[in-house]
């Protein structure tokens, strides 16, 4: 810091000044009401105020740098807030500090000057505060969003721990033609996930489910899922949880973070014991004598940190339209054992839902799987629209507006329902539910305007 003028003669950095050189001194009027917010009236801008303001704009040009340690600097700032109180409360009560009094002798024509200076000081401080607030507000309006997003994306914010894997281009290529509706659906779904991930600093990985010869050749259609999850895990080495989402899903609430909505309270919301809701009638827990205690207990080890696979069940059993898998050795093993030629050779006729059935099978027959799997009540991550799992509105399965469900999975819409129509409907609905105050204000203003404008016309007509 360079010194633009000579430092104060006093060791503590201030106290004595020559009155003629202080900004407020020349113009002060003997105004006693320096406690009123603005002594010059609503529009009063005194030269002193302008001066003070311009002084501010130029920053804080000159302070003694002699005691520039943290304490002396902050003390200066802190003590700067004091005089107004003391002046305000002290003088009217007739109380005069000894030191102050002693000083008062030196600058004897004090009162008018003193008051004027005090006011300008106050004004100055106030305007400085005001200016800072304005700056902060403008800064917030312009950069606030990006600052928050950057924070969430940073290692501190925890957003990088989550990756959304979104399937796209299902059976694209040879098998199926994509029409305008399919394109629209895909574009919108991808936009939706990106918008959500942006909000919270997550990553989105759009994976291509193109029908590949190598999968159909080995009877492995739709097993790409496993390979794609593995690939994504390799691609995002810093991420912890991977959220698989089918294309026919719509995130309704952008304001729910995965941390708050799910992962900070896994203990409370998941169930480990499949008997709680068991549409597949899986015997649980396994009772074979040769198994260890954890494998034989209905809740596994009951520790939320051991959960590696988080999914929900619908009326037909496991649902893999929306599930979470954590990066771990266990997950590696699960992904590795998920497809096996010997098992699939025996079961490919039966396993209509392919990888979903295979997972159910593994869960049922291999005790090592169970302890790390936890189930969420369906509507936490996988609300169904009416038409999936029955037409009547079942509050355990179907989207509930009143509860502002997180996400809708239009499961099975490709079988006799209209995927794009459903997605469009939920998109608009989400938009309506999540109007910002700005949108609302615009709408209200529009309303007022419309109310006002026809009235004006009527007047003209009259």
């Amino acid at each position, binding site marked *: 810091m360079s010194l633009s003028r000579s430092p104060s003669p006093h060791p503590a950095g201030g106290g*004595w000044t020559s009155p003629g050189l202080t900004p407020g001194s020349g113009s002060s009027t003997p105004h006693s009401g320096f406690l009123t917010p603005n002594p010059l009236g609503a529009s009063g801008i005194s030269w002193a105020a302008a001066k003070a303001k311009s002084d501010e704009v130029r920053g804080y040009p*000159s302070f003694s740098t002699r005691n520039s340690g943290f304490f002396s600097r902050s003390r200066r700032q802190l003590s700067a807030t004091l005089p107004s109180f003391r002046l305000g409360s002290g003088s009217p009560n007739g109380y005069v500090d000894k030191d102050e009094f002693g000083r008062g002798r030196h600058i004897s024509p004090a009162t008018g000057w003193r008051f004027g200076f005090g006011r300008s000081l106050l004004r100055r401080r106030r305007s400085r505060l005001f200016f800072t607030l304005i700056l902060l507000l403008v800064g917030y309006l312009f950069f606030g969003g990006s600052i928050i997003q950057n924070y969430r994306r940073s290692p501190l914010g925890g957003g990088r721990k989550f990756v959304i894997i979104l399937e796209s281009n299902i059976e694209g290529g040879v098998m199926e033609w994509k029409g305008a509706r399919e394109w629209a659906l895909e574009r919108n779904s991808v936009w939706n996930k990106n918008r959500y991930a942006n909000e919270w600093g997550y990553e989105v990985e759009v994976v291509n489910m193109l029908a590949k010869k190598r999968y159909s050749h080995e009877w492995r259609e739709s097993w790409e899922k496993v390979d794609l999850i593995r690939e994504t895990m390799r691609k995002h080495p810093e991420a912890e949880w991977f959220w698989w989402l089918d294309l026919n899903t719509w995130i309704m609430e952008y304001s729910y973070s995965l941390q708050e909505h799910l992962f900070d309270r896994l203990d409370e919301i998941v169930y480990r014991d499949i008997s709680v809701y068991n549409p597949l009638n899986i015997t649980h827990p396994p009772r074979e004598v040769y198994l260890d205690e954890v494998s034989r207990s209905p809740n596994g080890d009951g520790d939320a940190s051991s959960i590696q696979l988080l999914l929900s069940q619908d009326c037909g059993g496991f649902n893999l339209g929306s599930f979470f898998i954590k990066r771990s050795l266990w997950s590696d093993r699960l992904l590795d054992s998920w497809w096996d030629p010997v098992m699939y050779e025996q079961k490919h006729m039966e396993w209509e839902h392919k990888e979903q059935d295979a997972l159910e099978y593994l869960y049922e027959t291999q005790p090592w799987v169970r302890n790390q799997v936890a189930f969420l009540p369906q509507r936490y991550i996988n609300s169904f629209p009416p038409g999936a799992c029955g037409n009547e509105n079942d509050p355990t399965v179907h989207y509930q507006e009143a509860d502002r469900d997180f996400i809708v999975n239009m499961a099975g819409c490709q079988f006799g329902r209209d995927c794009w129509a459903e997605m469009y409907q939920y998109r608009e609905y989400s938009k309506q539910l999540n109007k910002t105050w700005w949108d609302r204000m615009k709408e209200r203003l529009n309303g007022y305007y419309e109310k006002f404008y026809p009235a004006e016309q009527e007047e003209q007509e009259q």
Partner: protein
Amino acid sequence: MQFALPPRKTPIAPPYARSSRFSLQRRKQFKAVAILSFALLVVFFLLSQLFYTSTGTAAVPVGTPDVVIVTVLDRVRFSEGYTQKIVKNREDYAKRHGYTNFFANLSDYETTLGDAPKSWAVVPAVRHAMASHPYSQYFFHLDAHALIMNPIKSLDSHVLEKSRLESLMRKDVPVVPPDSIIKTFSHIQPQDVDIIITTDNEDMSPGSFVLRQGEFAKFFLDFWFDPLYRTYNFAKAETHVLDHIVQWHPTILARLALIPQRVINAYSKDSSAAGADGTYKEGDFVIRFVGCDTDTKRNCEKEMDPFYRSWVGKTKIE
């Protein structure tokens, strides 16, 4: 415009003596707050450490055997005398090195196995041993029709020690002889190994292997024991399934060390399918009479007898 001094520091503003007094006070406050928060942090840190250790892995009870030898005995088919010989041989060995034995009865797993070949019992038996010895590290499955011929060798120094295992591990060789295209990983480290096994002339040999307790073991055993494998009519039942899963599932292969056959799995002369340099020689750790129970022309008791007597002689001399 130039001003001589910052205007706020006027006499009317708090006199500096006062302000300095205040700053002194404030400084003291700052100090106090700093010290207090530091102390609080230390306390929290210590507490968290305390609770971390208390919620960490449970301490291993004193006297827990490091190695458990798992044997599946068929008491129905084989005479009590024969079974006793096997038991005696293994108990002597366990006593020498502070290990323990887990003798499983084939009949215990019959309901689980159903129609599948009885040789499958090895898988639930090892799982059972792990459940009943949750703090032991290594589980050495040795087929019943085998004798420990060199009981001086402890399993630790003979196989498990890091440097020893490092020198034994066969890297980048076909996992299933003679020429599987799947080869053992060349970069595998001894500390990553969870299963130590050998191959004979034809297959992996589940008659003698060492498995380390842990998540991998559960996965490996449960996966190996999957009902679809058991019903698939593999000609050699669990042996072929083992060949299959090791070749198709790299997460298993990544934890597997192949070691030379004779180290833990020497075959007797009459056994078929011993690998190159897999036949028992004097001084080897174990001898197995492979196939003596399935081949109708052979007799396990007779084959074992001379070796049992020689073992008894040896233990008496010592």
